C-alpha cells in the first residue's frame, strides 16, 4: 500500500476518533433535575423540575467547541404545596400552557479549563423563559465518564457526560410579574442544574 493511500486512512481514523460525541439528556433513570429556589423576606419557595431533554455535542479533546441545547418542560416544575404549584403554572406566573419550554442554548465557551475528565467553562448562551430570550453567561462543569453508560443502563454501551451549573436569574428580566409581590416571591431565582447525558457507542 502506497503512502498516498495510507495518509487519508490515518486522517479518517483520527477524525473519527476526535469527532465530538452527541450526548442525549433524556434520562431513562429520571435522575436529571433542575432545582430552583426563591428566598423572599416572607416566603421561601423551593422546587425542582425533572422533564429534561436536549443534546450536547462534546469533545474532550476540544471542549471549547461544545454546542448544545437543554430543554426543561415547564409543566414538570414541582413544589410541595399544591396551591403554590397551581399558581406557579398559572397564567399570572409562568403560564406553562402558553410557554411550555424553558431552554438554554449555547453560543460560545470561554475560560475553558480541563483537568483529567473534568472541564469547566464560562458558557454564554440564550436562556429562554416565559417567552423571553436573554443572553447569559454561566459557569458550567462538564464531567466526562468514559464507558460508564453500561453502569447506569445495563444493556447499553457508551459514555456519559455530567453537566452541573449554578446560576441566578431575575424574574423581571423575563416579564414575570415585574416589581410585584417581592416580599413573598423573590425577584431573584437561584437555579441549579445537575444532568447526565448519554452517548451510545456501537
Amino acid at each position, binding site marked *: 500500500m502506497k503512502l498516498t493511500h495510507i495518509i487519508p486512512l490515518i486522517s479518517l481514523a483520527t477524525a473519527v476518533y476526535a469527532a465530538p460525541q452527541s450526548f442525549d439528556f433524556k434520562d431513562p433513570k429520571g*435522575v436529571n*433535575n433542575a432545582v430552583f429556589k426563591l428566598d423572599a423576606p416572607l416566603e421561601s419557595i423551593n422546587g425542582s423540575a425533572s422533564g429534561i431533554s436536549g443534546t450536547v455535542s462534546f469533545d474532550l479533546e476540544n471542549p471549547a467547541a461544545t454546542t448544545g441545547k437543554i430543554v426543561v418542560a415547564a409543566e414538570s416544575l414541582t413544589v*410541595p404545596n399544591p396551591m403554590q404549584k397551581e399558581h406557579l403554572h398559572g397564567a399570572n406566573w409562568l403560564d406553562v400552557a402558553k410557554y411550555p419550554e424553558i431552554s438554554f442554548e449555547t453560543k460560545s465557551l470561554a475560560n475553558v479549563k480541563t483537568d483529567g475528565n473534568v472541564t469547566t467553562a464560562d458558557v454564554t448562551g440564550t436562556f429562554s423563559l416565559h417567552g423571553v430570550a436573554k443572553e447569559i453567561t454561566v459557569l458550567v462543569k462538564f464531567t466526562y465518564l468514559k464507558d460508564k453508560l453500561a453502569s*447506569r443502563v445495563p444493556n447499553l454501551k457508551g459514555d456519559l457526560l*455530567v453537566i452541573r451549573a449554578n446560576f441566578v436569574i431575575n424574574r423581571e428580566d423575563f416579564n414575570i410579574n415585574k416589581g410585584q409581590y417581592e416580599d413573598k416571591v423573590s425577584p431573584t431565582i437561584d437555579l441549579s442544574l445537575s444532568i*447526565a447525558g448519554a452517548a451510545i457507542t456501537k
Partner: protein
Amino acid sequence: MKRVLQILALVAALGVPAVWLATGANRGWTKTSVPVKTLDEVTGIEGISYQKKFLPGVDFLGAGFGGAAVLAGASLFFRKPKNKNQQKQ
C-alpha cells in the same frame, strides 16, 4: 349545644397544634408531597422525586385556631342550660 361547641373549640385549639407539632412543626405552607433525594452512584447526581405525604403548615395551624375561635364565638349565641332546680323555681 353551648357545651358541645365549647368542647369542639377546645379540641380544635389543642388538637390542631398537637398534630402540627407531631408532624414536624413545618413553618411553611401545608405540603401534600415531600421531596425525596436519591443518589445516582455513577454520576453523583442527587435525583429528586416527590412522595405523597401530608405535612401541615402554618395555614393549617391558622385554620385550626380560626375554627376554634368561630366555634367558641358561636357558643356565645346559645344560652346556658338551666338546671332542674332553677326550672322549678
